[in-house]
């Protein structure tokens, strides 16, 4: 008894916008490559339903100085490259990833506040050291972020970098800086479909084209609420596919940062024996958080550990087929 099965394809009417990170010399920048994200009109990797034009991309987070709050496991993995953002960026590029995320610290190692000039110098170093598209995140404090990101935008004029984070309080200034110097923004909201949508609308109203906006719905680590981020992203992606034009931005999330803040990844001592080997656990924490997120629609995952990068890169290469 032969059974003919009709594959259960859904007809989505919407599509995620394509966003290009980085600009080559011909486009007014100095990047050796650019990276395109988005463009899906199906759920992650369902190429039986529709072609998937671009795979999720990997960015690796580096800091403008050796961070003093990172896990010792990350410190030993990157070694002396962490002493200089240029060396660190080069080490990241050697992993074969798509982008470098440079985070500007609030203070230098001596406790002095990072000035706009200092931030410019760090960005310049990274732009000179790597040909990859660059994402720059401020220290995460409103006034300081504005001061630094405005200066950084000018320093990197034409490079089509991503400025982050852009939220509902600072968006006017950050968007203006992005528009003046040809950049993109990372629009961050707190794990909520409506907040994400509203920020896209606000940014668009100020005049930034939506093909310059990445949506950052925030994530949480495995074991610490990853399901909230997972479902917020899945709902956003479904809304995009159902035709809601204000949710059709590619999504950037930071599983590396979230996972490595958690005890499971960060610490090797004084933990239960059922937690197993520290390195295996730490990498599993980061890679499983990232895996869950790429299956809920992440277009860019930002990671921290080189071994996590190798693993996630490998799994994406197996999952992603263009289709048709």
């Amino acid at each position, binding site marked *: 008894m032969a059974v003919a*099965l009709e594959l259960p394809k859904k007809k989505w009417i919407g599509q995620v916008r394509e966003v290009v990170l980085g600009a080559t010399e011909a486009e007014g920048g100095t990047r050796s490559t650019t990276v395109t994200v988005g463009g899906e009109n199906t759920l992650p990797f369902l190429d039986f339903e529709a072609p998937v034009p671009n795979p999720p991309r990997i960015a690796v987070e580096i800091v403008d100085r050796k961070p003093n709050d990172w896990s010792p496991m990350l410190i030993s993995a990157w070694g002396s490259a962490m002493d200089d953002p240029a060396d660190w960026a080069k080490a990241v590029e050697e992993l074969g990833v798509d982008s470098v995320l440079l985070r500007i610290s609030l203070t230098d190692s001596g406790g002095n506040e990072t000035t706009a000039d200092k931030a410019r110098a760090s960005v310049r170093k990274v732009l000179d050291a790597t040909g990859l598209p660059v994402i720059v995140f401020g220290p995460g404090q409103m006034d300081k972020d504005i001061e630094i990101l405005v200066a950084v935008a000018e320093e990197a004029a034409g490079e089509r970098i991503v400025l982050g984070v852009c939220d509902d309080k600072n968006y006017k200034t950050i968007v203006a800086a992005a528009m003046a110097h040809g950049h993109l923004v990372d629009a961050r909201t707190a794990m909520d479909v409506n907040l994400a949508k509203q920020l896209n609308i606000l940014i668009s109203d100020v005049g930034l084209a939506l093909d310059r906006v990445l949506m950052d719905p925030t994530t949480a680590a495995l074991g610490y609420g990853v399901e*909230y981020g997972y*479902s917020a992203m899945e709902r956003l992606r479904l809304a995009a596919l159902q035709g809601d034009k204000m949710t059709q931005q590619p999504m950037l999330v930071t599983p590396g940062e979230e996972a490595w*803040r958690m005890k499971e990844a960060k610490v090797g001592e004084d933990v239960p024996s059922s937690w197993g080997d520290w390195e*295996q656990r730490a990498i599993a924490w980061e890679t*499983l958080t990232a895996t869950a997120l790429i299956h809920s629609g992440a277009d860019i995952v930002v990671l921290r550990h080189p071994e996590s990068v190798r693993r996630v890169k490998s*799994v994406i290469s197996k999952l992603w087929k263009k289709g048709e």
Partner: protein
Amino acid sequence: MALTGLEIYKLLPKTNCKDCGFPTCLAFAMKLAAKQAELAACPHVSDEAKAALESAAAPPIRLIIFGDTDQKIQVGNETELYRHDKSFFHMPGLLVRVQDDQPLDEVEQLVSQVDGYSVDYVGQPLNLDGIAVQSVSGDPVTFAKYAAAVRGKTKRPLILMADDPAVMKAGLAEVAGTTPLIYAANKDNWETMAALAKEHKAPLAVAAEGLEPLVEIVAQVRAAGVEDIVLDPGARGSHDSLNALTQIRRLALEAKPDRLLGYPVIAFPGQDSEGTAEESMLAAQQIAKYAGLLVLDHFDPAVAYALLALRQNIYTDPRQPVQVTPGIYDINEPGPNDQLLITTNFSITYFSVANEVQATGMPAWLLIADSEGLSVLTGWAAGKFDADKIATTVKSSGIADKIGHRKLVIPGAVAVLSGELEDELPGWEIMVGPREAVDIPNFMKLWKS
């Protein structure tokens, strides 16, 4: 597919005899549709109508149970494509596979480790669910020996894996008294396997390469009288598994074709994977995307913990705000001079704050108010985390006996409450903390008792 009240009414006797306790057949039909009455209450319903109603009421994915009464695996009964639409209900079983060509003592040791593995996750012990024993030797005597040895080391549910019904029969004889899952019926052996499944009242996995051949064998074993079925569509590796499992879930929820795919799916993430790393990421994918059973080829406590935590997260019911118990939480062994922070009992708020505090390495007291699972701002707006609630929490918690100072840090998002709080808590100094948990470490560094 559930029937409407009117559809049910058409199947009832329409005599309005009131024997069911309702005034009319239509009223009874409406109650049935709302699942507030049982069909058995009608003594006059025809067998055809009963069959039609029961089949319509059956869940789109059949609930499959195996193991014994104390330790069992229950999977299936799922109704959703996306967890946010309602919830995922039965967490997939996580089992570890052993094979009868491995040294017996290593198998026994591994089974004991898997059996005894337990990790605490937010106050609950999480465990692996069982063992899959696979015949590689093809020899009934060897398989029986391994099945018996495994049974001797664990009471957890088992999957017996063999293609040759004679081998399967030998294994089944060794585990009598408990119900294993039989893996698997295929196009060549299904008739004998179906007979074994019926004889042992055990669920039967059906394996094929691709959905169409799979559906064919399912139809055959079902016609042979097997009702409890598990599907193996054969797709291995992350790409093929995701596409196949998504197709099966979609077809099952649409009851197509003829409900032949309305069963839980078994996955083997280690097969064709390069080691534990790839296996762990594929297992994570399959936990999120539609597997009912996962058979792992490696046991590593570090990976097991991560997978168990993910399974817990994905199967959390999104309709229930997840709460932690209100009260005093001590972090990094605080003393009387250490700082005191208060926030709500919404789990994500709690975990965000507790983790930031913990990550500083600084000792502190965290006071959790009962906001009924609401976050700081929503709780404040709803009157569940206002000055009154905070003051009551401070007074009733007994925190004043544990600390020598009288300084309370409130979330920056409710800074507006500080004046009112100083009135309600005489002698206390109210300090306004950061709005976001991520800024807590920098804030805490400024502490002077």
